[in-house]
C-alpha cells in the first residue's frame, strides 16, 4: 500500500520567501507528526496532530512556522519569511493511533534557503 508521501522532495528558495511543504499520511492514520533534521543532527520535533484534538505546537521554533491538517488527512507546513537557518530536511510521519509508537515516515522535503 501507499506510504507517507511528501512534496516537494526538494525545495530551493530565497531568503525572505514563504514556502509550503505538503504531507499525505497513510490513509486511516489518526496521528501526524512533523520533524526537522539538520545535517548530522537528530530529529527535532515541530508539531503533532491527533484526530480532532488541538495540535501540539510546542516544537515550532518561531511564529514564522505554522501547520494545519485538513479533514484529518493532508497536512501543510508553512514557513514564512524563510531564513538560512531554516535549511534542513523536513520529515512527516503518521501512525495508526497516538502514543508515539511505530511511526511511518515520508522521505522528507530537503529545503535549501539561499
Amino acid at each position, binding site marked *: 500500500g501507499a506510504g507517507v508521501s511528501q512534496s516537494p522532495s526538494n525545495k530551493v528558495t530565497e531568503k525572505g520567501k514563504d514556502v509550503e511543504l505538503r504531507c499525505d499520511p497513510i490513509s486511516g492514520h489518526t496521528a501526524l507528526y512533523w520533524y526537522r533534521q539538520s545535517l548530522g543532527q537528530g530529529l527535532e520535533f515541530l508539531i503533532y496532530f491527533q484526530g480532532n484534538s488541538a495540535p501540539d505546537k510546542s516544537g515550532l521554533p518561531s511564529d514564522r512556522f505554522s501547520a494545519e491538517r485538513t479533514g484529518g488527512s493532508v497536512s501543510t507546513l508553512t514557513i514564512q519569511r524563510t531564513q538560512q537557518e531554516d535549511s534542513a530536511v523536513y*520529515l512527516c510521519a503518521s501512525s495508526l493511533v497516538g502514543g*508515539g509508537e511505530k511511526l511511518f515516515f515520508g522521505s522528507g522535503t530537503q529545503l535549501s534557503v539561499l
Partner: protein
Amino acid sequence: SQKIEQNSEALNIQEGKTATLTCNYTNYSPAYLQWYRQDPGRGPVFLLLIRENEKEKRKERLKVTFDTTLKQSLFHITASQPADSATYLCGHASGGSYIPTFGRGTSLIVHP
C-alpha cells in the same frame, strides 16, 4: 528533561559479525523504546519496539534489550551484512507525552 543518547561515532564491523548499538536515557524510565533504521536521503523506518516490562524482543536477525537498571537499550544485528549499513535511531515517548524524541543515531558500516 528526558534525553536519549547514542554513540555518535560510526561503528565499523566485518560482515558476519554481530553489531551492537547502544541507547542510553537519562532520568525516568520510558514506557518503551523503539529503534528505526535510516538510509541516506530517506526517512526513518520502524524496526522494533520494546516495552518497559520486556527484557528482550527479537525479529529475524535483530534483537533489542531493555535494562531499566542501567537505563539502557542494546540493539543487536547478528550475522551482519553490508546491506545493514545505515544509521540507526533510538527513540521513546514517556512522561505522558505522545511525542517521540530521538537520539542522533549511530552510523553502522558493515565491511564485506
